[in-house]
């Protein structure tokens, strides 16, 4: 069937981890529609068995990312007109993660790596202590703040070829979080972070491909954060070397 101007031809990947294929749908072409909207339209009107995931619908929760015309994107904030080519769109599950069904992936590996990178706070204080005065313009804080708005959507993880080729690689988001933790003056785990990102899947695997930064919907720059980790680990490597 040929798409008329008021419909879109949407090719959607169907299947599970074991395999699948693209299936084509005709979807009405409304003004103000996002990719998530057309996916939902298909499930609600065309094929009730289509599976996908979303929650916030405003770019805050990072659960709706998919491959749109081969590019990883947050679908709830991707206007159809921005990506449509000849009235066609191709939608597939996010790359580099196991598929559960259709467009929904298993994000556990992404979060396991987040924790493996020590991407969590290591407290120096308790709830009984006052809140620390921290100059928001201090160099370390500015560095820590630069990656803090990550919504763990895994778009960068899907964009990175190193992730695709190296199952151990912790990936851009987890490493960026580690860099934030490392720069947090309230954190007691700085050496822990450096050790965690220096192992076989660590920051040193990154080839500065930069796809993470290009595709991050929040304009974050994990590549820069990873470079920071490389610098910090290298410095610490020499320091340790001179001590022993």
């Amino acid at each position, binding site marked *: 069937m040929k798409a008329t101007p008021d419909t879109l031809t949407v090719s959607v990947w169907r299947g599970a981890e074991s395999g699948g294929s693209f299936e084509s749908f005709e979807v009405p072409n409304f003004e103000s529609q996002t990719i998530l909207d057309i996916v939902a339209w298909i499930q609600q009107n065309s094929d009730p068995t289509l599976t996908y995931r979303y929650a916030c619908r405003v770019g805050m929760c990072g659960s709706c990312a998919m491959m749109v015309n081969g590019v990883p994107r947050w679908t709830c904030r991707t206007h159809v007109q921005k990506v449509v080519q000849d009235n066609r769109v191709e939608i597939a599950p996010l790359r580099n993660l196991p598929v559960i069904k259709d467009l929904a992936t298993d994000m556990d590996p992404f979060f396991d790596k987040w924790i493996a990178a020590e991407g969590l706070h290591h407290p120096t204080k308790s709830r009984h202590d006052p809140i620390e005065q921290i100059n928001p313009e201090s160099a370390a804080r500015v560095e820590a703040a630069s990656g803090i708005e990550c919504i763990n959507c895994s778009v960068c993880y899907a964009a990175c070829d190193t992730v695709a080729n190296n199952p151990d690689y912790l990936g851009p988001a987890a490493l960026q979080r580690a860099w934030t933790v490392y720069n947090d003056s309230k954190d007691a785990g700085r050496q822990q972070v450096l050790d965690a990102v220096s192992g076989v899947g660590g920051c040193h695997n990154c080839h*500065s*491909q*930069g796809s993470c930064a290009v*595709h991050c919907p929040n304009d974050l720059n994990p*590549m820069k954060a990873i*470079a920071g980790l490389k610098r910090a680990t*290298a410095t610490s490597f020499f320091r340790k070397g001179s001590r022993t």
Partner: protein
Amino acid sequence: MIRPHRTHTLWFAYILHRLSGLSLALFLPAHFYIMSLALTQPERLDGFLKWTDLMIVKVAEYGLVFLLAVHIFGGLRLMALEWLPWSNGQKTLAAAAVGGAFLISTMFFMRAI
């Protein structure tokens, strides 16, 4: 394959660095072999060096020097990115690395012909 998520400067810089490194690594044993002929069979070395007078070989050498230069400059850019304070001009630097490599290899080529 150049898939849509890859079509940007730094990814091209990455693949260029990798392919140049790979080619150099494959060329290197050959280079070592030819050079070691100096010890055992100097006349065969000369034979090879004569061969380099051919235009086609000159162009190949040009390519090789380009690959070496682009790999070096690319490598220096990467190490600067990793170890020096961050600079936002990574795209420009990557382009400069390629430009510099062209310059050097062309110089080599001009001298060679």
